[in-house]
């Protein structure tokens, strides 16, 4: 259960170190070597902190909790209304932040290798993206959650716009415009809940609602629920706003998309759990969430089938698999939530494998469309192996990690008496396989066409004008494939981290 510590040392560092790093690298702007050193050492520090940190709370600014009978306390064990902003670092937070830190380290390493000058700002934005996701997954306060969502959506736009092509500028502008709705929806929801309960701390608000009959005010709760769902949809890119998010995924560089999709999944998980904790008592709440998730899953995978560019196939598949994550959470049972959370972990990993392969294809210099490039298998067999493993994991084929979480999800759906959902999950994984292998066959396996110029990336970038595939990319692929196989064989390694969270959400929703 919870540790009573309210001054856990690691939480502020996980937020402040990336912020200071971002400020510093933005200031350095074009001093490549300094940026490289600072960014890489900072991302490795974050990984180390996330790994060794114990669990507990952080009450920022050290204001105490107010004991209802009078007096103040600094222990989380005693029932008290929180005066401070509260963050919680528990097992769910640990596994997600560790994975995100690992990905951040790889992405930073790769981008400092392959980008031309002036990448200080870009690296800074990547670090801030990490911060926003860390805030959203750790925070236990509505007001701060809102700030985190605003901060996060602005950063998504920044990271996408940084790739400088007209398509990405357009996607960024569109996303900024509409994501303002996400923030606004959340602000209204926050205002209503604050009006109803008077507490911006989520645990306190839930406690207040369960202790006090809201009576005739429950209509307000429905409106708050509606706005929070709206915000959830926009923030996570669920249907019907999926084109906005898929544009973002497709228009950013694939290495940046790794962090973008991680952030988006963390938002979905964090906000989804908060919605469940607050509103699971409302009739239809879970059904609404489930309907949105199922539509997202199906729309995403159908759109993915229609794409002819590997980048865009992946963009739509990420959307579709976000639906898989939220299906589990929407089921609202312990098994469903465990499945959803595990799916989020696995999804982040296998999508990162596929995106890294897509990034490598980009370095061959002929784009990522299935019409413009082919025959990579001959010049780069290792890459081909990696992309096939990634595709198998995404399609839920044993012994890889995707299989385990989809199995749990299907069992959870059947356990709830919803065989339709189970069938749709199966269908999505089969269609994922088809969509991916269309691209993989054309780009990697099909023999090189004479009319298509296939560049072989070489170490000597100046003569060919092509960027070599950096070795660290292969290292990243190896590590991620290793994790995918380990989680596929021993799913309990991850499930041990997720069980407790799921139990708490269902049985003691006021405990973060």
């Amino acid at each position: 259960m919870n540790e009573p510590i309210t001054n856990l040392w690691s939480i502020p560092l996980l937020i402040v170190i990336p912020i200071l790093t971002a400020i510093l690298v933005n200031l350095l702007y074009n001093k490549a070597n300094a940026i490289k050193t600072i960014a890489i050492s900072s991302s490795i520090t974050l990984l180390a902190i996330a790994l060794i940190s114990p669990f507990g709370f952080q009450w920022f600014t050290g204001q105490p909790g107010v004991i209802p009978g009078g007096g103040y306390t600094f222990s989380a064990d005693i029932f008290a209304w929180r005066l401070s902003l509260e963050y919680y670092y528990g097992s769910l937070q640990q596994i997600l932040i560790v994975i995100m830190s690992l990905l951040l380290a790889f992405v930073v390493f790769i981008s400092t290798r392959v980008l031309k000058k002036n990448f200080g700002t870009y690296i800074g934005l990547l670090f801030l993206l990490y911060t926003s996701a860390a805030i959203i997954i750790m925070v236990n306060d509505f007001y701060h959650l809102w700030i985190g969502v605003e901060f996060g959506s602005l950063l998504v736009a920044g990271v996408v716009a940084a790739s400088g092509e007209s398509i990405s500028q357009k996607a960024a502008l569109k996303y900024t415009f509409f994501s303002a709705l996400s923030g606004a929806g959340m602000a209204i929801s926050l205002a209503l809940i604050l009006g109803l309960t008077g507490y911006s701390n989520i645990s306190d608000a839930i406690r207040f609602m369960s202790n006090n009959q809201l009576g005739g005010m429950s209509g307000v709760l429905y409106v708050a629920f509606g706005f929070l769902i709206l915000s959830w949809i926009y923030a996570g890119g669920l249907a019907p706003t999926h084109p906005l998010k898929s544009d973002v995924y497709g228009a950013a560089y694939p290495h940046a998309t790794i962090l973008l999709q991680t952030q988006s999944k963390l938002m979905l998980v964090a906000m989804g759990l908060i919605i469940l904790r607050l509103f699971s008592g409302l009739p239809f709440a879970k059904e609404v969430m489930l309907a949105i998730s199922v539509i997202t899953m199906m729309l995403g995978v159908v759109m993915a089938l229609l794409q002819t560019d590997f980048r865009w196939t992946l963009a739509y598949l990420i959307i579709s698999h976000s639906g898989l994550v939220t299906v589990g959470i929407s089921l609202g049972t312990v098994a469903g939530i465990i499945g959803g959370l595990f799916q989020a972990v696995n999804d982040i990993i296998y999508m990162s494998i596929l995106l890294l392969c897509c990034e490598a294809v980009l370095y061959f210099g002929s784009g990522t469309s299935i019409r413009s490039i082919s025959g990579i298998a001959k010049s780069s067999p290792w890459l081909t192996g990696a992309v096939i493993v990634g595709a198998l994991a995404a399609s839920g084929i044993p012994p890889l990690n995707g299989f385990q979480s989809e199995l749990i999800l299907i069992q959870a759906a059947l356990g709830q008496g919803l065989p339709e959902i189970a069938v749709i999950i199966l269908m999505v994984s089969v269609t994922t396989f088809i969509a991916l292998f269309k691209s993989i066959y054309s780009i990697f396996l099909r023999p090189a066409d004479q009319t298509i110029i296939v560049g072989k990336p070489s170490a000597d970038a100046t003569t060919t004008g092509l960027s070599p595939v950096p070795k660290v990319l292969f290292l990243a692929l190896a590590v991620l494939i290793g994790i995918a196989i380990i989680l596929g064989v021993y799913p309990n390694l991850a499930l041990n981290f997720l069980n407790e969270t799921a139990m708490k959400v269902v049985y003691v929703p006021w405990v973060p």
Partner: protein
Amino acid sequence: MEMGELKGARGIVALVALVIIFAGVLFSFLQLNGNVARGISPEYNRLAYLEAPNNLASWVYDLRGFDTFIETGVIYVGAVVSVLALGRGIVKVKGPREEEPVPQTSFDFKPDTVPIILKYFGLPAIMLIVSYGLLIVTGAATSGGGGFQCGVIISSAYLLGMAIYGKSNPLNLGKKFLIGLGSIGWATYGLCGLPGYLATHYWQYNVGADLWSSYPGFPGAVPEILRTVFGDPFRLALVLKEGTFYSSAGIVPIINLGEAFNVIGALGLIFLVFAYGWSDRKEGET
């Protein structure tokens, strides 16, 4: 999005959605009218005056100080992203494909047409506005204003200079200066949390005001030296019939300075870049 897209079925859907949203919000606010739960807010009122004579300063920069830190970040990121959209920090993968970013045309001020009287009073007005901004930020703990307001006031002085004098703005804040100011501002705000963190492991614990370290059950202790360094310079005395009461806003005034720098940097940069565009060349070169 163009207005033409809103004709037909789409427009009807948008209209219906808007009506539903408005009805929902209106209904909720009517329901809440007079029934708002006060929750934790009386407790904030009870504690706020112990730090700063101005309750607002205590709430915004201490009780909920970390919220404000991330909000400051929203402003900083807003500036960085706006400037990025105009060219600063766009990245390219090393490779053969080259698509030059679209050249930015700068908005053309015509300062020659400004009446002579404006030119004569421009500089005094700018200097007085800057002084006013500095007054606001130094009174942050006691008056209603603070870092945000100071930043907005000083950047409006900058905008005034730009509008009257064009490129020969007397308040001559350059690109590098503004970026540096914004970064230093946010970093200062962040680092204000460090003394409290080192002493008590609570980030941004107000070591100058130090309300809680003598309370039973408080983990950690605040050394005398920190209390002196951060508390004494801002100590105020409240003289009443009942006696003289001392309070110190502690780190709140310093946080406000950081906040002000951040806002000046961010807004100034947005004004500068939207008026003249961005180029990686040094200032003065063409």
